[in-house]
């Protein structure tokens, strides 16, 4: 454990020193993974699948603000879908526009979640999103996560119906529209997932704000269990055909990732908890103070064998020559 804490301190100081390089690198990686996942799943426009194009776009994203990744991801998705059928591109563009107009005008900070939720779905670890947002976000994150789930199910539905959507007859335009919109509105699996994620976020948020010991740990485990339970109950009632094994396995991995996040954000030493009570003219205070675990990193000392000369001394020496 101590080694891990030392590693954490090292990472922190490394980040502090190299922040200027690390942030663009993180942006680059997020953009790269997002684009690769989109291309892997949709990939109808072959020009965009070229790894060189992907790298260039990701590199551009690393210098732009974080929210540009969302714009780029949305544009890529729409271009791919345009190649498949203009109807699917139109519906998706409308959905993106609606999300932007109705919600993200208010909370541009949360927009990244809408990209990360589908990406995590495609990477088979979607449950990490509600747990993490419960830990670091607020209940309003439910809307962003819900929007992300809708985007995922829309794309998955379009991906599943490629043959229907690829048909070129003009008569089928309405059918295509119907196929796509029905897939979103009548999708029970999507509704169950949104409900499960909303409950998880609320539960995790409520528990982690309690002043009980190990609140974050309890919150993560309770959130994971609640998530699985709601998904399974939803499956029983609405016959959503979710894979139980994949759900449980995905939850385990998500819990693991959440613990890593907890390690970095919230690390308390509950053995040294102090409970104090005092009063002033207006209030009684019952204060619980929990110290953070802090380790001092071993310092490296450089012993100088030859006394270094200062710049002045060097210049004086050269002048005398």
């Amino acid at each position, binding site marked *: 454990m101590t080694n891990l804490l030392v590693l954490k301190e090292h990472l922190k100081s490394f980040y502090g020193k190299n922040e200027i390089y690390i942030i663009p690198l993180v942006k680059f990686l997020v953009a790269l993974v997002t684009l690769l996942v989109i291309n892997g799943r949709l990939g109808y426009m072959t020009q965009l699948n070229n790894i060189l194009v992907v790298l260039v776009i990701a590199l551009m994203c690393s210098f732009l603000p974080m929210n540009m990744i969302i714009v780029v991801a949305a544009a890529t998705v729409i271009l791919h879908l345009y190649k498949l059928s203009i109807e699917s591109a139109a*519906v998706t563009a409308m959905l993106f526009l*609606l999300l932007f107009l109705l919600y993200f005008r208010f909370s541009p900070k949360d927009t990244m979640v809408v990209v990360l939720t589908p990406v995590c779905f495609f990477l088979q670890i979607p449950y990490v999103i509600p747990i993490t947002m419960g830990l670091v976000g607020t209940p309003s994150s439910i809307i962003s996560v819900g929007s992300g789930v809708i985007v995922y199910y829309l794309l998955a539905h379009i991906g599943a119906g490629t043959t229907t959507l690829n048909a070129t007859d003009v008569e089928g335009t309405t059918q295509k*529209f119907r196929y796509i919109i029905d897939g979103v509105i009548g999708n029970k699996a999507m509704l169950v997932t949104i409900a499960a994620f909303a409950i998880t976020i609320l539960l995790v948020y409520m528990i982690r704000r309690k002043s009980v010991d190990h609140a974050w740990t309890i919150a993560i485990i309770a959130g994971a269990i609640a998530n699985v339970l709601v998904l399974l109950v939803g499956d029983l009632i609405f016959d959503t055909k979710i894979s139980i094994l994949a759900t449980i396995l995905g939850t385990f991995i998500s819990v693991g990732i959440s613990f890593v996040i907890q390690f970095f954000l919230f690390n308390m030493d509950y053995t040294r908890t102090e409970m104090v009570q005092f009063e002033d003219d207006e209030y009684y205070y019952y204060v619980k103070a929990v110290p953070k675990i802090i380790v001092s990193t071993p310092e490296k000392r450089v012993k100088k064998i030859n006394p270094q000369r200062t710049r002045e001394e060097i210049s004086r020496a050269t002048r005398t020559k």
Partner: protein
Amino acid sequence: MLNEDRIILMTRMASYEENEGKKNVSIGSYFRGDYIGLQVIKSVISATIAFALLVTLAVTYDIGSFMQDIYKLDLLQIGKNLLIVYVVMVSIYIAISYFIYSYRYNVAKRSLKCYFNNLKELNSLYEEEKK
């Protein structure tokens, strides 16, 4: 001469201006009513576009039967219903944005107050130095 207190204060203020302050300063340049009014107008425009999109989606979804029955439909009644839905939607949206933006304005003002206090302190530091 370098004044350490002044440099610390100036660094802190510059960091504020660079990060969270950027937004607050732009919010603070409005009067309360103007700021909220502008945001509400933007919200009305957003809600109108969103409503138009939803209606377009609904119409394209059912365009076959819609075109078939267009002469049988009571278009006036449909128009009235649409108008009611539109007004309700925009009203809810206005209420939400009024609430959110008045809260944001208050938070920004409070934060700017602290910033202006720092400015004053900086000024007094300069004055002291002159003496």
